[in-house]
């Protein structure tokens, strides 16, 4: 692919990107959210048309205008979410849309042998009559690969194939990938797991903001370099701390998590939080930031470890329990997990306190109105009145409403997951100021963010995550972009 560009309304998703994959290699495509990975893949597989540039296979320019054409040219794709149908049998999944016919009717006997044959290519031997959903995720993933793999497949695109697999299952998948590589198939591998890249990839291409910012053999691209390419700063740049932090840890930890974790979601981790302290959660996309936040809040049920708040153990961990113990959580995805679009601004805000009080002691209308007005003023929520349905506000204001809901319960521990995502610069500064002010008042804060600068600006300590594992903690006075990136890369400074 040479000089490929694609613009969507308002964004230039790809800007003259060159991307070369050779036969018989595993090529990792890396980049943070919005870097252009998906767009590049979609152009390659015919789901999206390019604006400029050309695509060549074996040196010959080709046109790929639809997924069908891509498949005919030997480009097979396995998308991130397995798009097979779990309730259908393996046979049906493998032959869907290309069922062998006999006298115009589907011949299931031929279909079954066809399915077995396809699986044999990957050395999988399973009962093809069982519904796909009854197999493990790893096997489902392999079936998806079997479906994408034709006799004449030259390029196989795997988009986050290991996202929901555990270590053993991922290893199984890698064996098959190596096997395919040995047969001369070019494999494009997209993942957020750094370890896996170094385990399986021969070459790496790094995208950032729609541009190709680096390409090279895996051996010549050390972790440190890779991460700074992805995040977009050279380490030589000296980082200045924004300003001295006025706050700091005070006294005994208010929150203590020991060995908290859940299989397939997050490896067990320890974390403490003191009043007046801000702890940041840093890591690349998919490293487990949200998972840590949700495990602590009980939104994901931990299957190991324990959590104490103010010295008392929370026995059955759930959001309701956490709330009663003085925690509050501000989720990352406000549309899906934050707002109640139909309910008014007032109702959305008071819900935070109402759930804590229970359904019997309803906040009176005047109290609700007072709380809502207070929050609308404190956070500068732009709404004509508190009775407007939240769904009609702008994104930034919706985010503020969600924040207001978590503040209104008067928490002593506040967990913010991506507090500034999708917020304009002005609101961004307001929220950072607010975070600092809250801490000065003795609130303990846990902030997960993909914006390193933001984390550095507000955090006393930063817990660093990689591949769903907590790999280190950077103490106060040492929080700089460089130490974080070094820690993510695994090279202690």
């Amino acid at each position, binding site marked *: 692919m040479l000089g490929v560009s694609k613009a969507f309304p308002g964004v230039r998703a790809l800007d003259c990107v060159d991307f070369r994959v050779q036969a018989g290699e595993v090529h990792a495509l890396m980049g943070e959210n919005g870097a252009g990975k998906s767009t590049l893949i979609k152009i390659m597989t015919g789901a999206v048309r390019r604006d400029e540039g050309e695509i060549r296979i074996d040196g010959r320019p080709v046109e790929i205008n639809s997924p069908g054409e891509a498949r005919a040219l030997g480009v097979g794709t396995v998308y991130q979410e397995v798009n097979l149908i779990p309730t259908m049998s393996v046979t049906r999944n493998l032959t869907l849309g290309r069922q062998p016919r006999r006298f115009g009717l589907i011949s299931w006997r031929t279909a079954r042998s066809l399915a077995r044959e396809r699986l044999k290519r990957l050395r999988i031997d399973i009962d093809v009559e069982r519904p796909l959903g009854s197999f493990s995720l790893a096997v489902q993933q392999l079936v998806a690969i079997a479906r994408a793999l034709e006799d004449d497949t030259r390029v196989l695109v795997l988009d986050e194939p290991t996202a929901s697999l555990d270590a053993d299952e991922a290893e199984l998948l890698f064996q098959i990938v190596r096997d395919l590589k040995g047969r001369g198939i070019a494999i494009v591998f997209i993942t957020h797991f750094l370890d896996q890249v170094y385990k399986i990839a021969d070459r790496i291409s790094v995208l950032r903001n729609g541009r190709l910012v680096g390409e090279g053999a895996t051996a010549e691209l050390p972790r440190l370099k890779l991460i700074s390419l992805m995040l977009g700063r050279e380490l030589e740049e000296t980082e200045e701390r924004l300003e001295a932090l006025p706050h700091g840890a005070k006294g005994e930890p208010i929150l203590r998590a020991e060995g908290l974790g859940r299989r397939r979601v997050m490896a067990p981790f320890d974390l403490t939080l003191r009043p007046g302290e801000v702890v940041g959660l840093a890591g690349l996309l998919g490293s487990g930031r949200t998972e840590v936040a949700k495990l602590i*809040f009980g*939104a994901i049920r931990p299957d190991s470890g324990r959590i104490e708040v103010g010295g008392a153990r929370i026995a059955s961990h*759930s*959001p*309701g329990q*956490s*709330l*009663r113990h003085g925690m509050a*959580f501000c*989720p990352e995805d406000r*549309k*899906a*997990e*934050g*707002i*109640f*679009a*139909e*309910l*008014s601004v007032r*109702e959305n805000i*008071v*819900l*935070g306190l*109402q*759930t*804590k*009080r*229970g*359904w*019997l*002691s*309803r*906040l009176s*209308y005047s109290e609700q109105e007072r709380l809502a007005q207070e929050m609308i003023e404190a956070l500068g929520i732009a709404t004509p009145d508190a*009775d407007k*349905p939240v*769904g*009609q506000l702008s994104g930034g204001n919706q985010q503020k409403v969600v924040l207001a*809901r978590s503040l209104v319960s008067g928490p002593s521990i506040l967990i913010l997951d991506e507090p500034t995502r999708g917020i304009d610069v002005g609101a961004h500064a307001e929220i950072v100021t607010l975070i600092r002010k809250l801490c000065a008042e003795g609130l303990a804060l846990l902030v997960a963010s993909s914006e390193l600068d933001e984390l550095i600006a507000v955090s006393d300590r930063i817990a660093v995550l990689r591949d769903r594992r907590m790999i280190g903690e950077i103490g106060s006075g040492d929080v700089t972009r460089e130490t974080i990136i070094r820690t993510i890369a695994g090279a202690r400074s």
Partner: protein
Amino acid sequence: MTPGSNVETKTAALRPRANTETAALPQRLHGLRALAGHRAIWPLLALALILAVDGAISPGFFNVRIVEGRLFGNLIDILYRAMPTAVVALGMAVVIGTKGIDLSVGSVIAIVGAVITWRIHSGDPHLVVLMAALAVGVLCGLWNGFLVAVLDIQPIIATLILMVSGRGIGLMINLLYGGTNPSFTSPLLQGLSVGHIGLVPTRIILGAAIFGALWLLIRRTALGLFLESVGGNAAAADLAGINARLIKYAAYVICGLCAAWAGVVLAADTHTSDPVSIGLYIELDAILAVVIGGGSLSGGRIYLGMTVLGALIIQALTTSILTSGLPPEYNLVVKAFVVIVVLLLQSDNLRAALSKGFTGRKR
């Protein structure tokens, strides 16, 4: 439609522009402008229109007389006949507010009728029988709640189970003492159903009392807010610390209780346990009443007053078709036609299109 407002317009399509029922009504009702913007205006107009047509067709439609010490007339008749459906619809509105649905209400009525007849035949005190009937409603609600909240079965399927089996259960209860459509007499229960207190039929008074009690429960505790949160965005409700399972249980139990009350009224009205035909299709009328009242099947909002209005519109239609001299065979089709008109009138999109298309002319 602007691109960004996709979600809002979608959910607002079949829904009047509205806020909560607790919203400050006085300032809202300032002048006609405010009234025109209120969500009740279109259903109210529809009801007024139906009644006006009746008045034009049959003179004396609005006459209310006192016969044998009770109020008598078409308007009272509409209220009287609408009451069971209206109460069932109130329960339905609560369930629909949680993004659920309860198809089993008609079957609950059948079971309640059978239980009443059976227990009266067994010689239980009639007050105990009444309590047993309401307990049956609670049990049915718990069963539906269990299927929906604990087993996580889709509400339409979960309540279909009781909808199908309920009438069979009613027939089996009849068999317990060997009766086909056994009848009973009970001054207490019949008093609740067809009796009157002073001039007013008892069932109208009780219906109003149930409405009041439910309104207090929904709007004077935080239960309504929790119900609407669970229906509006289950994931967000969970993160906000709401026990969605308990809330759903509550919704189905409320709905079961409402259906049980309707069962008492309808069974006492007919003096018999007739599980095959008692309360037949009442679930459909109830859902319709909720929707006419502006409730959306995608959940998130509960309008109690509007739901009662919806039930009244449905009954007014039926009554007016019967009094208008149209053959009763026309009933269902005319009803369907009027219902779709009422629903379209409530659509923000259509209203916007109309006011654009006929500028100057007011609908």
